[in-house]
Every structure is written in structure tokens, then in C-alpha cells.
């Protein structure tokens, strides 16, 4: 199943980069596609991530800084990074204070690409059924 493949990709990213505590994949309009979270509410996370990514993209454009790479929020207890996945989805990564953001930004790119591949597979091969949020 597509969702299993997506969850596997999220789980593999969490394994690979030490410090990641939760991840989620959402649509650009803020609906959760699938998530690998513990105590965080995935629906709230998805909605906020979509808003934050949209805002960050507009800001990047307004400031003449080109294509947005990631939108990162840092708190005293850790951070949240949001990446665009194609034009229709986004990836949220939550980490603790030990998360190395530079490393995360490098390591997340293959995951974003792989997710894109899986999502396109889901959209194209199944007679237009598209992605169902569940």
C-alpha cells in the first residue's frame, strides 16, 4: 500500500537522523496524509505546517531570495522543519535540541524525492482515485 511505503520512508528518516522525534506528511492545504508522531496532534501539526510553509514561501519570494528550501522554527526545546514535497504536499520534521539541522536538510532531500515518487505513483496508476487522507 502507498501509505505503508510512505510510513516506511518517514520511519527510515527518523532512524537515519538522530534527534528526530516526529514526522508527518500533509497536503499543501493542511490535511494529514500520514504521520509518525507520538504526543503531537498530527492534524494540528499539518494545518500549522501548511500555513507556515505558505507564509515562508511568500516571504522568500518577497525578499528576493529565490525558491524556499525549508521553513524552520526553533524553540528552547527543539525545532520543527517543513519541506515542500512537489507542489501538492509537505513534509514536517520535529526534532529535539540535539538535532543537527544542517544534517537534516541534507538527509531529508532523498526522502522528499522518494516520497514524491511514491505519491506520483499513487496519483497516476490507480484510475484517478488519488490520495485519500486517512
Amino acid at each position, binding site marked *: *500500500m502507498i501509505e*505503508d*511505503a*510512505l510510513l*516506511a*520512508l518517514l*520511519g*527510515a*528518516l527518523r*532512524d*537515519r537522523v*538522530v*534527534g528526530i*522525534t516526529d514526522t508527518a506528511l500533509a497536503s499543501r492545504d493542511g490535511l494529514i496524509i500520514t504521520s509518525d508522531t*507520538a504526543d503531537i496532534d498530527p492534524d494540528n501539526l499539518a494545518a500549522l505546517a501548511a500555513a507556515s510553509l505558505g507564509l515562508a514561501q511568500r516571504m522568500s519570494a518577497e525578499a528576493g531570495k529565490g525558491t524556499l528550501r525549508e521553513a524552520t522554527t526553533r524553540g*528552547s*526545546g527543539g525545532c520543527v522543519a517543513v519541506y515542500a514535497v512537489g507542489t501538492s504536499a509537505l513534509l514536517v520534521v520535529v526534532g*529535539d*535540541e*540535539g*538535532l*543537527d539541522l544542517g*544534517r537534516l536538510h*541534507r*538527509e531529508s*532531500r*532523498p*526522502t522528499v*524525492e*522518494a516520497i514524491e*515518487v*511514491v505519491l*506520483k*505513483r499513487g496519483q*497516476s*496508476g490507480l484510475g484517478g482515485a488519488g490520495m485519500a487522507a486517512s
Partner: protein
Amino acid sequence: MGTPRGDRLAGEAPKWSGMLNRLSQVLTECATGKVSGVIRIAGEPGGTVHLADGAVVAIDTPGAPGPEVLLLRSGRVPEPGWAAAFTAAAASGEVGAELVRRELIGAGELEALLRMALADAMFVLAAGELAEYEVDNTPGDCVLPLEPAIGPSWLLAETSRRLAVLASLPTPVEHDRDRWASARGAGPAGLALGSGQETILALANGRRTARDMAFALGRGVYAVTLQLAQMHADGLLVPGARRVVPAQPSDSGHRQAGQDKAQDAVKSADVTAGEQVPPLPRRRRGGTAQPRRGRPAGGPMDRAALLRLLRPGAAGTDEDSM
């Protein structure tokens, strides 16, 4: 998951001592050369060793909580106090002295905490993997440097001791791989009261390693590891899903590492036999991503063929960049 760890650790001991030897070599060279700067270690977890005149002042690593986390997460110093000291010390850069001046912590206690943080960081570096390292003579930024800085011998000896203690445990715990969940029925009755076991149980949700719990609690990774081993032996904890980390490429730039990671990402997606997955696009230098092939016309794509495609050089050129 119940797999025996003894065999793995028997094989691991040489790896640990190998890593420790490498670290020892680098640190000793830097001590002799009175290097002031940083040693950047790429690996798992990797990190940065800050040196002043060849002595160690700090180590930053994702693998172990640094002094700021140890102070704040444990509740030892309240956040507003920290923030005020940090701001006040912005000019001088001496946050530690400011904390002491404001009586937020004693000088001796802070020194003890910084030494323990160093020991913990060195331990996780030595128990981890090193892909490559570089010595940079430009001093890095350091919020809470240890003063007086210490030579590497105490750190290395203590690390060696810790590795030996862990290797000899009857129920070994890998601090950065094993995740823990509370055992069914593990409740207050079974706990050694006053030992902090209840905070560990509250964190044991099957997703956290010893390292993760250490960050959450503001405690040392090694200390938490010892406690987890004991709680596991006492039947309070059961293993959760182990963290699977691809082996570090030993002589690779980002370019190769990126391709390996994409390959791993697809592998780990556990695509079932019936799925067709088009190959990941390979970037060409100076160009936008070009798919290697179009989507297969029909029939399941052989996963082995997909992976062959992703191997560097398969296209006849490895002039690709991520």
C-alpha cells in the same frame, strides 16, 4: 525485539577500541601541536571538538546533551535565569561566569557539570562511527567552555572505562539504537523509589533510545543507559523497534552519500512486488533533474534492476551532483 546482543557486542568491542584509538590519535596530535580551533568529525553521531592550546574546552554532538540542555532540561537553572545570563554575557561571551555571578549555580558545580558533559560527549563519539574528520585552526563558538580546559587523557580513560562497563553488562543496551517501552504491568509497585525510574517509564513509549531520553531529561546518555539496562533486567522495560542506520560511507563526499541515501530511502520504503516504482531522477551537473527512463510500460519493475540503476556509475558517468 529479543535478539541476543551478546554476539554483536563481542564483535563490536574491536570497533569501539578502533574508534577510541582514532580519537586518541587525533586528540594527542592536537594536544602536542597546541591546536586552538576545532576538530570536525563527520559520522554517526559525529560532532565538533573545541580546543584551546590543545586542551578540550567543549564538544558539540547530536549524540549527547550539551551543558545548556543539561542545565535547563533538568531544571537545575530556570529558563528565565538562563536567558537573562545569556543576554548579559553577550558582550563578554562568558555565560558561565554570569550564571555564577547571579548565583544560579555554583562555580564548582558548573565545572563538575561541564566535565561530565565532556565525558558523555566523548563516550558517544567513541561508541559511534567516524566517516572523516578535519582539524580547523579557527576557534568555533562555544557557549559554555570548560575552564580550565582539560587534556585528553582523563576523557579517553573515562571513555574506555565506560565502554568496558557497558560491554560487560548481562543485558546490554545500545544507547543510540535500542528503543524502549514500558513492560506491561510495570507500575509503582515494582519501582526502586527515589531513583528516577518513574521519569524513565513516563518516557518509554517505544520510540526513544537512551540518547533521546537523556535529551528529554537533561541527564547524561551513559547514566541513562546504565539505568535502562537495570530496568530492563528488572523487567520494567521491553525493547521497541531498533533504530536502523545505514553504515557510514568511509571516504565519501556529499555527492556519493546523497546517492546512497536515496538508494536506501527507496529500499526502506518496502515496496511490495506488485508496485511499479519509476527510478529516482538523477541530477546532472548544471541541469534540472532528468528521469533516467520513462515509466515502465507495464508489469512490475524488478526492484533489483531499480537499485542497479541507482548505483553510482551505472549510467556510464558519475558526474552527478545532488
